[in-house]
């Protein structure tokens, strides 16, 4: 495992700038998650690190050595593709053994057998080892593709939404399993996801991308509690952060255009009165959909269980985030 350092990395495809001056250090043993909508450059960053794309500018250092001119094989990285990319003409066993048999590793066959069996055990695909790779369910394919990375001991694991195609149960199982494996191996991992729970629970660091630029990099809590701008604030949080005009509540700093209020950062009982439009009972929490001066607000009921649509409730901000006209955080 190694430290991976990106400095000023840029890549454009024609007129589209996919990755714009990204600098980022992934410490040895860190689990870094990249968050961002489709087209933000997450996958391109993985491909640049893997060597599948050549950067237009910038440098990439793995384990203290610049690898910009290296082939993917020389970089010794493992990658899990979003589309599985299992070799369809090989069995599950041969798929898992494929990287170990490469000229890069040239693993002896008895060691291959042992490693493949180990990984198959962890990913619960031992009974499918002799299947053809095409003769699997989507979840099994995805696990084989994760397994193909895990059999190796690369400088860094790159994972492109590896759990996105799994059902909810398997996804949460594998999420915990992956985190456990990463922690026990001390593996360095760069992980792309849309999923907030994955980002928050697995990562030691989260990087938020917007149109190819890295807008914020920090611990999950930092990203959640202390976003640098409105865009970052909107990336995490379910239900999403409420964005309201800054003058709706007193106490806005000068220059503030909008106020960001996370649903759990709204206290009830005092303040402005709004109408309850809808009540959602989720079991462990109750979500209130409120309407205030034409704006929709979502919050969590603090103590009362018996709200009904049409009720009124007074609210005021507890930990407001203030943003200026450009969306930058000012307080």
């Amino acid at each position, binding site marked *: 495992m190694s430290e991976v350092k990106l400095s000023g990395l840029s890549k454009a495809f024609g007129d589209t700038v996919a990755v714009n001056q990204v600098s980022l250090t992934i410490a040895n043993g860190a689990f870094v998650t990249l968050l961002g909508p489709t087209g933000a450059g997450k996958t391109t960053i993985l491909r640049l690190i893997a060597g599948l794309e050549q950067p237009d500018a910038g440098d990439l250092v793995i384990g203290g050595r610049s690898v910009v001119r290296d082939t993917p094989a020389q970089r010794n990285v493992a990658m899990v593709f979003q*589309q599985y990319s299992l070799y369809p003409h090989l069995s599950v066993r041969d798929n898992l053994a494929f990287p170990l048999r490469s000229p890069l590793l040239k693993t002896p066959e008895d060691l291959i057998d042992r490693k493949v069996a180990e990984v198959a055990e962890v990913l619960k695909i031992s009974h499918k080892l002799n299947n053809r790779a095409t003769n699997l369910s989507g979840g099994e394919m995805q696990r084989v593709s994760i397994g193909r990375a895990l059999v190796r001991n690369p400088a860094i694991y790159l994972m492109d939404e590896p759990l996105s195609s799994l059902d909810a149960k398997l996804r949460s199982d594998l999420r915990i399993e992956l985190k456990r494996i990463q922690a026990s191996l001390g593996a360095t991992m760069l992980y792309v996801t849309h999923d907030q729970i994955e980002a928050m629970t697995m990562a030691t660091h989260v990087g938020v991308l917007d149109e190819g630029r890295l807008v914020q990099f920090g611990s999950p809590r930092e990203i959640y509690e202390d976003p640098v701008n409105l865009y970052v604030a909107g990336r995490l949080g379910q239900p999403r952060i409420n964005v309201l005009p800054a003058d709706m509540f007193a106490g806005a700093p000068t220059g503030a255009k909008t106020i960001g209020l996370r649903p759990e950062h709204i206290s009830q009982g005092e303040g402005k009165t709004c109408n309850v439009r809808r009540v959602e009972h989720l079991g462990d929490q109750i979500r209130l959909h409120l309407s205030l001066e034409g704006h929709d607000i979502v919050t969590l009921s603090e103590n009362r269980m018996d709200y009904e649509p049409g009720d009124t409730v007074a609210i005021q901000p507890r930990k407001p985030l203030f943003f200026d006209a450009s969306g930058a955080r000012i307080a």
Partner: protein
Amino acid sequence: MSSYSITEPSSRQKWAAGTLVIVYAVITLLPLVWILTTGFKSPVDAIAYPPKVLFEPSLEGYVNLFTTRTRVTPEQLESLPPPASWYEQIVRNRDMVIAGPSRYGERFLNSVIIGFGSTFLSVFLGTLAAYAFSRFKVPMKDDLLFFILSTRMMPPIAVAIPIFLMFRTLGLSDTHLGMILLYTAVNISLAVWLLKGFIDEIPREYEEAALIDGYTRFQAFYKVVLPQAATGIASTAIFCLIFSWNEYAFAVLLTSGTAQTAPPFIPTIIGVGGQDWPAVAAGATLFLVPVMVFTILLRKHLLRGITFGAVRK
């Protein structure tokens, strides 16, 4: 449920379709059956009118195909020792003796060398070219691909005379190498286009995965792309073989001895000692066998679908 269904054709439709297919199959197979049976007829039965459907099978056609014979007088025939083999007996029944082997075997071997040689070369070069066109940024790619295709826009025989002169100057006339190069030149455009289509359909992710898994690009091509292109390679090989195996016009023009293939040779059998239709039919029947065997051997690769499903779209 009634017998009507939107997905299943009605039994009458199936019956009609089946009949149509059978009629078509009979029409297309009839000439083959004719050739096959003629090969086992006696020369008299072969030209009988009306044609004989039932006849006494004979191997005379096959014996005549592989031998040259000379006529002898009954006295000479008497003086010979008894025939040593069944085929000598067949020949003697016609007042003839075997003078030696015919050239069919050599010509057949020439066809095998030239047909399979040019097929291998076309598919080999075609696969490499198709891979490059499919995966790399080739300057003027579209123009080059069009140029390659355009070589098929006229019948190849239209350039027969320049090729004849070229071959004579280069010393390629009547050589195996010359014919292999010529058939490869004709086949390669088909091979590149067909194979490019197949390779285009193989997702790049497989190679990318292999590159990351520690393989070089050539190893990735060899270990990952080639096995998945097997379907395309097999069907391309069949097309190439059928063309070069059956090619007649260039073979007549450019070969006469050493490198002559079977197609121009088979008709010449007629001239040897009367109109020997059974021998011609026997030659044609045997000539079908390699292409049939080759196609049957590659048949399992022709089934599509092995590459589908392992990449999520």
